[in-house]
């Protein structure tokens, strides 16, 4: 079931996107329209997904057992993955609002204190040093443009 899920998801994606492509118009061989190429890609993806699903269905339960490197959904791993994703999304969402320096500090502190569980003082200190260093490197030296945010930097 675990190996069955990815091709099933791909099949769902290919059906949905194939339907959208069909609505865009396929045209003909002599005059292909915008939906032509994506539609046939979706058809290929659907066929590959069905092949993978039937192959996994034929496998014995022993073959299905995940190896250590393959296992995803242990609670601890899943929590960590979600935390990293949440932290990264937070960085994207806060950037325009609170500016580069403050967002970087919040993001670093989130990573070191919440995800990595560093001691409070050490976590805050290295977050402050890292965000100041990132500000100097990217904003001052490399001249990369970031939003200034509410605090003005």
């Amino acid at each position, binding site marked *: 079931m675990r190996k069955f899920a990815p091709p099933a998801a791909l099949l769902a994606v290919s059906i949905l996107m194939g339907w959208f492509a069909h609505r865009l118009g396929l045209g003909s061989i002599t005059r292909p329209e915008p939906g032509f*190429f994506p539609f046939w890609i979706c058809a290929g993806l659907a066929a590959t997904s069905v092949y993978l699903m039937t192959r996994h269905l034929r496998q014995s339960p022993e073959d299905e057992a995940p190896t250590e490197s393959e296992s995803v959904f242990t609670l601890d791993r899943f929590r960590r993955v979600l935390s*990293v994703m949440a932290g990264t999304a937070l*960085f994207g969402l806060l950037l325009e609002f609170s500016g580069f320096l403050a967002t970087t500090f919040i993001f*670093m502190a989130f990573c070191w204190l919440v995800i990595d569980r560093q001691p409070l003082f050490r976590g805050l200190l290295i977050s402050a040093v890292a965000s100041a260093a990132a500000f100097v490197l990217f904003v001052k030296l490399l001249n990369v443009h*970031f939003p200034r945010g509410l605090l003005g930097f």
Partner: protein
Amino acid sequence: MGDLFANLYFGFSVSLAPYNLLACFMGVFVGTAIGVLPGLGPVATMSLLLPITIKMEPTAAIIIMAGVFYGAMYGGSTTSILLNLPGEASSVVTTLDGYQMARQGRAGPALAICAWGSFIAGTLGVLGITLMAPALAEMAVKIGPPELVALLCLSFLLVIQFSGGSRPRAAASALLGFLLSTVGLDPVESTPRYDFGTFTLMDGVGFAPLVIGLFGISEVLINLEKSEKMEVFKGRIKGLWPTRQDWRDSAPAIGRGSIVGFFMGILPGMGTIVPPFLSYSLERRISKRPEKFGTGVIEGVAGPEAANNSATAGSMIPLLTLGIAPSAAVAVLTAAFLTHGVQPGPLLITEHPAIFWGVVTSMYTGNALLLLLNLPLVGMWARLLTVPYRYLWPLILLFCGIGAYSVSNNPVDVLLMAVFGLLGYMMRKMNYPGAPLVLAFVLGRLFEEKVRQSLVISRGSYETFIAHPLALLAWIASAILLLYPFFLRGKRTPHFPAEEEE
């Protein structure tokens, strides 16, 4: 020949200009550092540098990116030898004999022969580009849309075949990449596709968020699961000059590795992973002492290291002459060219000679700089390995976020990067290779444009795709590639790690 020397002179006058020389040094320095550090590969690093290099001169930007690519091959061997942990997937084979040499107190000669082998092979590979690329580019100018479609098809099949793991999964990954490349305005009629009413998606999925997510974020997630307990080689590294016997044993292996690596590197899908494996098997097969391989023989280090370095040079040939990226890392280089408004391919030499010859000659300089960086400073690189990963990963994530944001100053790209990071993590967990997805994504629009152009020009006749002998040859090769697994069913086929595997 006179032309060649004149072009080389012109190239060196470009690449040795202080700004470009500094770019070359920065590239190889960063390349070595990320090669040494397990946890961030050249593909992710080059994607991170992509937005930072936007404001640079195109020549300097490409020089720095290329420097990271081949510099990582040098650095990857240091961890293989001192840690028994490959810094890059291309250095997996080096662990077999390199680490054994370190355990026997011969870490110095192992590191030295890696650096010298890499330098010799890298330089020979660049010489190969210098001699072959102009002639191939001249031939490639005559290639029309139908032939390009056939060649691209062959490239995709090669990538699927050799990307490591199951072929159907690699095919699914490539098809997903194709599908992602169709998001945005259609290349012929400019009709919006899959934009769901958003301006961000009307421009298409950004290359930087996709690659940084797939390779950078997913690598952090995978590394966070690994144990931090690494056994770093503690002894003093001495004897950094190989003995005469070491040279006698290694020189033929370096020569063979350089040739194998260069020609395998040209083929799409081979990347820098397969050539070291082939070089190692070749050395073992022709050795007078095959039973000693795996116990610390120097040929087992010299051959593969030479192969992965000359493969980086070989993989530049399809990019510089046809505009086709044969590996994920070269796909990022393609994006760097396109970001600067330069189309890599057959017209690159004539339209942008300063970029072409500047980048090619910078690789000679870069290889020499890498030798200087890797031999005397090996102790410094070894110390870098002692930095705990828990201090590095938040910084890597921050660089990923900055990289994704700064291409188009759009915070939505950071969110997209997070989504692709999760996708990349799941793909790696489920053994779906990421390289076919990236290659299909990069070349997908070109493929679609050429298919539609061919069909329109030929008024829907499929015969146009086989009318040219080159196209016919590419289709025959594609058919063989598609059918031969059915004939090999039941027989053992070698397994190579996927390009982004550590």
